[in-house]
């Protein structure tokens, strides 16, 4: 059955208005179907994990939220995804405005080949968020502080962003996303290329960011999903097999497939 949602959780979600809802979403790459009739609600100011084996469509689904799939010619999205009550695939929606509200952090840290300052300042610049140089500087410094990077780079903001270590680069990307002041931050396996210490720092950071932002994270590490997220969705072959509270999912999953994946029998 497609998109099985635990009844008890659904009533709970209804209490707290979700910031983002996906209804009957299908995604095709050419003729190949990557996402099959997925419906999912993303609660505000919480961390939602999308887990599942490689190729299950969790990254594809994440990229539907800020329409990054638009950049792939062969990709077709159908169904409805709403952000604060508006259909984001409506032709009236400006993708530029959407992506300013919904930021993204990628699997591989991808700072621009520019200075640390310019990396963070780029977003506010293109969206005209600051009226003066001082204001821009303020935004950059606040964003770097929120990303927990400021203390490490405060004396070398003019150094190239690419000169930082892998973990620092990823936090720079987070600061860059924060600088535009989004509501939601999408993270596509942000720790997969990092060592355990850098991963721990980023996980801590996400915990503290939860107050201000809604985070949706794709991860292949079940331990990470269990540590940081409040909600977890398990994807398998383009379908959501189970979606609910993380604690319940990892202790007593309803579905046998989920049970098998979590215990490491499939994957």
């Amino acid at each position: 059955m497609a998109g099985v949602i635990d009844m008890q959780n659904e009533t709970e979600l209804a209490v707290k208005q979700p910031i983002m809802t996906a209804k009957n979403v299908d995604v095709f790459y050419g003729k190949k179907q990557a996402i099959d009739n997925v419906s999912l609600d993303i609660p505000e100011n919480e961390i939602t994990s999308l887990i599942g084996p490689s190729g299950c469509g969790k990254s594809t689904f994440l990229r539907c939220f800020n329409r990054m799939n638009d950049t792939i010619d062969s990709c077709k999205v159908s169904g409805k995804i709403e952000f604060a009550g508006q259909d984001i695939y409506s032709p009236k929606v400006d993708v530029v405005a959407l992506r300013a509200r919904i930021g993204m952090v990628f699997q591989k840290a991808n700072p621009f080949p520019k200075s640390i300052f310019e990396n963070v300042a780029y977003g506010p610049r293109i969206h005209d968020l600051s009226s003066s140089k001082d204001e821009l500087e303020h935004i950059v410094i606040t964003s770097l502080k929120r990303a927990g990077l400021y203390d490490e780079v405060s004396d070398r903001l003019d150094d190239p962003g690419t000169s930082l270590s892998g973990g620092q680069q990823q936090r720079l990307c987070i600061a860059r996303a924060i600088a535009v002041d989004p509501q939601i931050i999408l993270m596509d396996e942000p720790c997969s290329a990092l060592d355990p210490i850098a991963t721990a720092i980023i996980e801590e950071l996400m915990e503290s960011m939860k107050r201000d932002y809604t985070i949706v994270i794709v991860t292949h590490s079940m331990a990470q999903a269990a540590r940081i997220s409040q909600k977890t969705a398990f994807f398998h072959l383009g379908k959501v097999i189970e979606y609910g509270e993380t604690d319940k999912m990892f202790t007593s999953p309803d579905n046998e497939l989920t049970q098998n994946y979590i215990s490491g029998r499939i994957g």
Partner: protein
Amino acid sequence: MPDLNLITSDQLKKRHAKEARFQWYGRIAIMISLSFLVFMFVAIFYRGAGAFQQTKIGLDIDFSEALIDPQGTRDAEVIAGANFKPLITKSLAQVFPEAANRADKRAVYKLISSGSVFELGNMVKDNPNLIGTSRRVWLTATSEVDLFMKGKIDADIDEALRRLKDSDIARIEMLKDSGLIKRKFNTALFTNGDSREPEMAGILGAALGSFFSLLICFLISFPLGILTAVYLEEYAKKSRITDFIEVNINNLAAVPSIVFGLLGLSIFLNFFHLPRSTPLVGGMVLALMTLPTIIIASRSILRSVPKSIRDAALGLGASKTQTTFHHVVPLALPGMLTGTILGMARALGETAPLLMIGMVAFIVDIPKGVTDVATSLPVQIFLWADSPEKGFVERTSAAIIVLLIFLVLMNLLAVYLRRKLERRW
């Protein structure tokens, strides 16, 4: 019991020998191609080096007012219209008093290049105060004298087989003894246009023709090429039309350059009636030829900009155009410039298409703009190589040296720009 022996000596020997053999094949290939190159350079420099020096004959010229400007007007037109030949013949008569009859006098005058009267004329035009004074002037010797001084005419062969007679040689020896004949740096080579007299011929006209052609070529092909490449690579959706365009660009890059010349002839000259033999049309034809090269190079550079940079900018809410022009193009620009310069270097050496649009004429004037008739460096080399006068042999090699220097400079510029502007990620 498994076989734990690590030494397979027979096989090992064969393998080592094979590896050594292949390395040697490579080295030999490099040595052969290097030796061709060295041979070519040595041959060109050996022949061309002489052209950078020119034999001059020192004459005491009396700039008599009666001959140049009898009315004393000092008017530029009067000076330009004056006949300077008597000045030279008078001075020559003092040096060679024994040459009394007309034939001898003519032979003596022939030691000096026929272009010398213009040299004198220009001197006086630039400095009218010379009139009425007397001073020593070093006048360009004729090509035969020059060749003799450089040891390229053998005095031992039969007099009937050489253009320099024994009496001429005797006079040259006399000038040598009195220190009135000298080899000086050949400035005319760099300041004159083409000429029928080898000693007066220079490459400035051809070099400027090449410069103007390349300027037009750059102004057309760089923006067109870059915009085409950016659009095809960043914006255009893959479709049958883009496939068709791509195949055609690749085909155009392989079209022989003379075909572009014919195209220019039939379209630019015969249909649009643009001025014949001009750098304007030459540059347009070269631009057609260079465009595919620039597009292909630029596209491959754009393709090498990592997708993650595009994703980063798009994910921040940058529009397609912002992403392209803030991030992708700046990263690709050094490579695009390099590709363009290499394309231009190829255009600089191109001869065949220019022959088709008439840039092969004998043109003495130095072009002042893109619509003046001109030749180009490689065409000038072709023209000089075709000339029967012996004096053009070394000029041809000298022009080749100059062209090679320009090509090397352009390639160095490409390398420099790439090193200087390249940003790593």
